[in-house]
């Protein structure tokens, strides 16, 4: 099945629908599942919640109790997933070619898909949204309810303000010592920033850190409209101009910036995926989830 394009995804805000389509194109088994199947030891019954798979409902118990119960299996996954979303004001940058698509929406789709995959595999996952100088945290947990919580939080996120400063971020992201997989989506226009420091620190704590750097086609090609004046959404009241004469300088400055970003990430052994938001999310997800891409 062909990968679902960004233009198509820009039409809906229903994350569950998006997840279903993107993951259908991606195919199953991207990530090695742990402890699935018959060998799992029974732990407890739990009341059915919307989103649970039907095959996990205990039908005999339904016949006896006239209620839906789900068999919970004892699992001890050692890996927790953390989805880190940069929702500062610059993430509202729209695609200049596809209406209704912006960096935040794209990051939202990517992280929702990762969360859905984690939920299907039985991994615990949590969400941290960095927006307006604050950290909003959904603690790591398992199960379909957790997915609903994460999706609801993602839907509410608005791109505003700056990244939280280093102190706030350090107190907000208290990860356990257990090994974690960290997926961070940002535009990395601020570098070094509090987010970059945190990612490097987490990598030094032996966590698996993977960053996706979101860009737009217009940014990469330097093809902005030269008519209007521009301002930096996080940079105060200064006014900027774009024109054909400034394109070369713009591309040079930009390449220099992202070269330094890539160098820093590589030096710290953080996986970096460059993604244009006009790309199909499936492609980006495939690169992002690639096992051993770095090792």
């Amino acid at each position: 099945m062909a990968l679902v394009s960004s233009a198509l995804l820009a039409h809906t805000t229903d994350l569950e629908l998006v997840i279903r389509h993107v993951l259908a194109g991606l195919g199953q088994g991207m990530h090695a599942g742990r402890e699935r199947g018959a060998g799992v030891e029974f732990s407890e019954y739990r009341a059915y919640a919307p989103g649970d798979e039907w095959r996990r409902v205990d039908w005999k118990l339904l016949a006896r109790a006239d209620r839906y119960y789900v068999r919970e299996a004892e699992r001890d996954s050692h890996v927790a997933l953390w989805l880190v979303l940069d929702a500062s004001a610059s993430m509202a940058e729209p695609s200049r070619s596809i209406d209704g698509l912006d960096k935040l929406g794209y990051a939202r789709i990517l992280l929702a898909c990762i969360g859905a995959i984690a939920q299907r595999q039985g991994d615990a996952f949590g969400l941290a949204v960095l927006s307006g100088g604050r950290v909003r945290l959904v603690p790591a947990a398992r199960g379909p309810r957790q997915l609903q919580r994460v999706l609801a939080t993602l839907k509410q996120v608005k791109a505003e303000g700056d990244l939280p400063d280093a102190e706030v971020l350090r107190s907000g992201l208290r990860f356990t010592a257990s090994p974690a997989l960290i997926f961070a989506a940002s535009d990395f226009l601020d570098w070094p920033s509090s987010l970059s420091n945190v990612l490097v620190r987490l990598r030094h704590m032996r966590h698996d850190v993977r960053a996706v750097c979101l860009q737009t086609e217009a940014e990469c090609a330097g093809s902005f409209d030269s008519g209007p004046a521009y301002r930096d959404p996080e940079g105060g009241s200064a006014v900027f101009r774009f024109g054909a004469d400034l394109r070369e300088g713009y591309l040079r400055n930009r390449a220099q910036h992202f070269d330094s970003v890539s160098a820093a990430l590589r030096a710290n052994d953080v996986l970096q995926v460059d993604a244009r938001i006009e790309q199909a999310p499936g492609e980006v997800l495939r690169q992002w989830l690639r096992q051993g891409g770095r090792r």
Partner: protein
Amino acid sequence: MNSLWWLALPTLLLPIWWHRKKRVQVKAEPLASARFLPRTEPRQMRVWRWSDIVLLIVRCLLLACAIAWLADPVFPWRGDTVVVAAGTDAQWTEREVQAAGFGAAARVALPAQRALAWIGAHEREFKPQARLLVLGDIPMPALLPQFRHPLVLRTLAKPLPPGAARVAIVSKRPQEWRRMFAALDGPLRVVLENVPGPKTELIVWDMPEAPPAALRAPLWWATDAGAFTELAQSQALGTLRYADGARGRVWASNAWPPQDPAAARALLESWRTLHYAPLPYTAPAQSFAPTRAAARGDANGALRDFLLLALISLFAIERILTHARRR
């Protein structure tokens, strides 16, 4: 000069400036990667754009209306005009109009006394090439009038209205008084009565006893001052004494009835002059050439009511629109 108010018209630039000024702003779109671009000076928008055009128009109209109300404009709209004094013979009027070639001209009927004054006050309403014809028994003005339009005056003296003053003579020697009144000439006619009535204008009281208290008249001539108590506080004018009382004005003199023609004429002349308005003298027919004299009467307020109404309506609309914009 009211027309100096037109110099206030530049105040219309104020609302235009207010509504224009708001557009002098920089509109900048957010661009995440703006930091890779060089800074520039904020540019003002070159596009001539307006905010709240309806409100601007209403405000300009409001100001213009207020200035017009103060300046009280007059638009020349009257062409050739025939001014006919009220009560003029219709046949004669037609004849004169046709003779002067004013057949198609508009006609204005006015009281004869006010005709020339009305033309002077409304002169600004006449078009520059308009001609005027004035017909009827127009009284002669004290000063030679001047007009900015050619004006032809054709007059027809009306016969004097039949009318006479009623005089009651209460005297033991009525013949002497009657002889005096019979000698009266001029426009004033006299009807002599023996018994005073309610319409009596002059009572000659040549009796030593006081008149009945209920008897009233505008003027009394008394020969015996003792008959009238109000004469106690009278004022003297030669041999004549006069006073105002409840029953009317009293003239008293011991020298009455006058014995010589000069005294009689003087008495009758004084009475006629003081108690009867002079009859107007019909002006002779003549033509007035246009002069450059300034129009008399700065304003006539022809448009004031309309402008005031428009001013109030526009003010209400302006308030409503301003309020609606704030909501």
